């Protein structure tokens, strides 16, 4: 008997966080034997949709039909039983265990006499699964610690098939940017495996930022934007231009003319010459006082790492940094703050905030010396008064300065980092994804603030994956490719497509 191909219908998927919709009435169909691409900018709702399918988040509404039968996903165990398998871009491989043990990580190990591990059977079954997927080059007995990123990804994928009989096609594999940390050879191997899975009749949902990959492996593609599904196309009939336009269709409010007109006479603020670190191959740029410069590039192009170098987080291996003509050596975050360099990190929870602490404590932390009494004690009154002022200038919405930062929304948490950054009237402000995970209202507050700061003479260097944001906000944009500053161009008149092409161009 030949079973009909698997068909999963996702409908009315909605989810709001603290009243801010992350996903609104999204729907798509996954069909066995097909790779379905899912694309969209950061914050488009892709990961929220995946979390709902994984049973990790409780949806506000969601209707699922598998081959016509209604489906409930109360928790992640239920999702697993139904046949969902999730491959995330972060590799959760246990390096101390063997490949075979890693394959069985979500399944019981085969046993001998009920208590001992049946190593022989384990290795045999692990080997069989690897063979089935055409991953013959990985020995199941070796330790996982030496695996390349690509092989680790393949092991992760093979692990999804443990306990699944050959010929059982009820598996829905969802991959979230699996190629983010792979090199091109590894990507080829991965694509071979994905092709093999598709031809076996499995359904795959493939999330990516790289459009070229879609044309390689996907048959259909769904575009998301602002929490909604914009369209679903057959990949073969759709141009890159269409996809990019649909992904980025939103218009950001244009920089108001008076601000960009109020340009000071050009004065060089920052000169970076042949800078080199572990993650940056070669970076050079010049930034004027009052200028907003964007850094564009793909994930892994060295954008954030350039900021790390300028803030003294990553040590310099070579090159010079000059700030207002002063050469900076022995840079550390502590020295950077003292020199008037401020930094808003990409990961605000892990790199920026002290979630258990109060708002004012978070704002003033790098600047405590300014509120010192006898250089020893903190003048809490003055620290709070200053925090209150700054809170107003960044339009912070809080119940009080003693509120714990944990309780605030992402947008307000981000504003706290801005308040911290501008406390000491910095000369240079480094921003890494300043509007990531921030609701639309807070986003515009932050745009306004960035323009104000530049208008007051601060120089701003900002990394962003949102190209529309870079074009609308920046005076000039530097494009980074493969750890190098490849192009510098004025932002005015630039289209997102042109910018994206510069990011993709292989040199």
């Amino acid at each position, binding site marked *: 008997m030949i079973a009909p191909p698997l068909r999963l219908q996702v409908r009315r998927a909605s989810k709001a966080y603290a009243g801010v919709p992350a996903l609104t009435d999204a729907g798509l169909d996954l069909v066995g034997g097909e790779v379905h691409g899912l694309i969209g900018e950061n914050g488009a709702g892709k990961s929220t949709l995946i979390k709902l399918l994984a049973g990790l988040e409780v949806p506000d509404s969601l209707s699922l039909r598998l081959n016509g039968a209604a489906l409930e996903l109360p928790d992640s165990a239920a999702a697993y039983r139904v046949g969902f398998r999730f491959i995330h871009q972060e590799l959760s491989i246990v390096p101390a265990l063997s490949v075979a043990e890693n394959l069985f990580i979500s399944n019981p190990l085969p046993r001998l006499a009920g208590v001992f591990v049946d190593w022989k059977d384990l290795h045999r079954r692990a080997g069989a699964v690897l063979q089935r997927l055409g991953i013959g080059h990985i020995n199941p007995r070796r330790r996982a610690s030496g695996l390349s990123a690509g092989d680790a990804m393949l092991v992760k994928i093979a692990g999804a098939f443990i306990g699944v009989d050959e010929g059982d096609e009820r598996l829905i594999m969802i991959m979230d940017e699996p190629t983010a940390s792979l090199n091109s050879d590894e990507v080829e191997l991965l694509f071979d495996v994905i092709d093999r899975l598709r031809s076996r009749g499995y359904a795959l949902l493939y999330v990516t930022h790289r459009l070229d990959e879609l044309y390689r492996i996907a048959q259909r593609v769904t575009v998301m934007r602002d929490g909604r599904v914009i369209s679903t196309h057959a990949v073969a009939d759709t141009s890159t231009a269409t996809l990019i336009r649909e992904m980025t269709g939103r218009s950001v409010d244009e920089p108001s003319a008076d601000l960009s007109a109020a340009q000071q006479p050009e004065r060089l603020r920052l000169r970076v010459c042949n800078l080199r670190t572990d993650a940056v191959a070669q970076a050079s740029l010049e930034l004027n006082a009052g200028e907003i410069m964007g850094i564009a590039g793909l994930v892994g192009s060295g954008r954030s790492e350039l900021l790390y170098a300028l803030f003294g987080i990553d040590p310099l291996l070579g090159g010079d940094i000059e700030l207002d003509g002063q050469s900076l050596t022995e840079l550390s975050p502590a020295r950077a703050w003292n020199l008037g360099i401020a930094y808003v990190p990409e990961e605000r929870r892990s790199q920026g905030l002290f979630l258990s602490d109060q708002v004012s404590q978070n704002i003033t932390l*790098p600047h405590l010396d300014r509120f*010192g009494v006898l250089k020893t*004690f903190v003048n809490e009154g003055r620290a709070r008064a200053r925090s209150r002022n700054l809170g107003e200038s960044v339009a912070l919405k809080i119940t009080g300065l003693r509120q714990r930062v944990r309780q605030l929304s992402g947008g307000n948490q981000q504003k706290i980092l801005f308040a911290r950054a501008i406390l000491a009237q910095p000369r240079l402000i480094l921003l890494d994804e300043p509007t990531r995970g921030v609701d639309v209202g807070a986003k515009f507050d932050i745009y306004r603030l960035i323009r104000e700061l530049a208008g007051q003479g601060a120089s701003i260097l900002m990394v962003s994956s949102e190209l529309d944001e870079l074009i609308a906000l920046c005076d000039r944009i530097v494009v980074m490719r493969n750890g190098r500053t490849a192009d510098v161009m004025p932002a005015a008149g630039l289209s997102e497509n042109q910018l994206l092409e510069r990011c993709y161009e292989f040199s």
Partner: protein
Amino acid sequence: MTESDKSPGMGPRFSLTAFLRRYGTFIGFLLIVLFFWTQRPQTFMTVPNWVNITRQMSILGVVAFTMTIVMVTGDFDLSVGAMASLVGIVAGTTFQNGGSVAEAVALSLLVGAAGGAFNGLLVATVGISAFVATLGALTVFRGLALYISGGASIYGRVIPAEFSSFGRGGIALGRIGETDLALPNLTIIAIISLILVFIILNYSIVGRRLYAIGGNMEAARFGGIRINRLRLLSFVISGLGAAVAGLMLFSRLATAHPTQGEGLMLQAIAAVFLGMTLSEESQPNVIGTLIGVLILGVLANGLTQMQIDTYIQQISTGVIIILAVTLSSLSGRQTRYRRWLRRLLGKAPEASS
């Protein structure tokens, strides 16, 4: 900024779990006091007995207060007990060699600071976990104490009278009924160290930075805090605290034995843990530590008065610590305890990303 009218997560509804989680340890302390009061109505709730309790707890207090500073940064110091023993032997040997009290005290404090710096360098600069570093230091300090003393106690006439009388003496407060009442010198030292630690942690710039390191080390580094320097400092303070406690113990007993401080370490860490349960965010805080020390001190005092076997005392102390920490993690945020657990299991304390 707009004062929003809703305060998320701080609803006015009373929750018994939340109440117990927040104040359970303090209520437990009051219950313990009440229990002994009813059991020994004549002797327990009297001024002389409480003065006595403060003296009994003073040594543990100094260690626990300074330990709080280390634990605020997310580390801990297992070597304090061995350091206290070593300092007794160092001071005693100084006396044996004709040194004055001032010389003995100065040398002791120097040893304490040096030992703390040793721990701090291992943890902050070399980057090994506090568990392994201070466990190693514990063994080194203990070995040194045994080696210097040849395993024997130092006591008797070599110890200057003004040194041994300090630990028993105090400032006269007057008479209550039949008894002369004095504020013990040891209690005074404990109070001074409590005030110093309180000021450092709550009012100083360094204190804010220490809490920041314990709260989120990477964010602290990105926020311009010189992490290594401050972690080193916290271990030096802990070493100094252990040295002071070692001197207090030596003075009170008029005897220096190479292992006499060993019980202090577990008790001090327990006191800080008890104190953490009293903080809204499960952070180490010195007032909480004081309550923790009081709980341990009152338990020891009361159970002794009831002539309960010291072994049973140990069991009940352990049970109370476990109860308190369990209570405070009831449906609450367990992140900090989990982080502790991870550190205890030897994961590198600094995220090396």
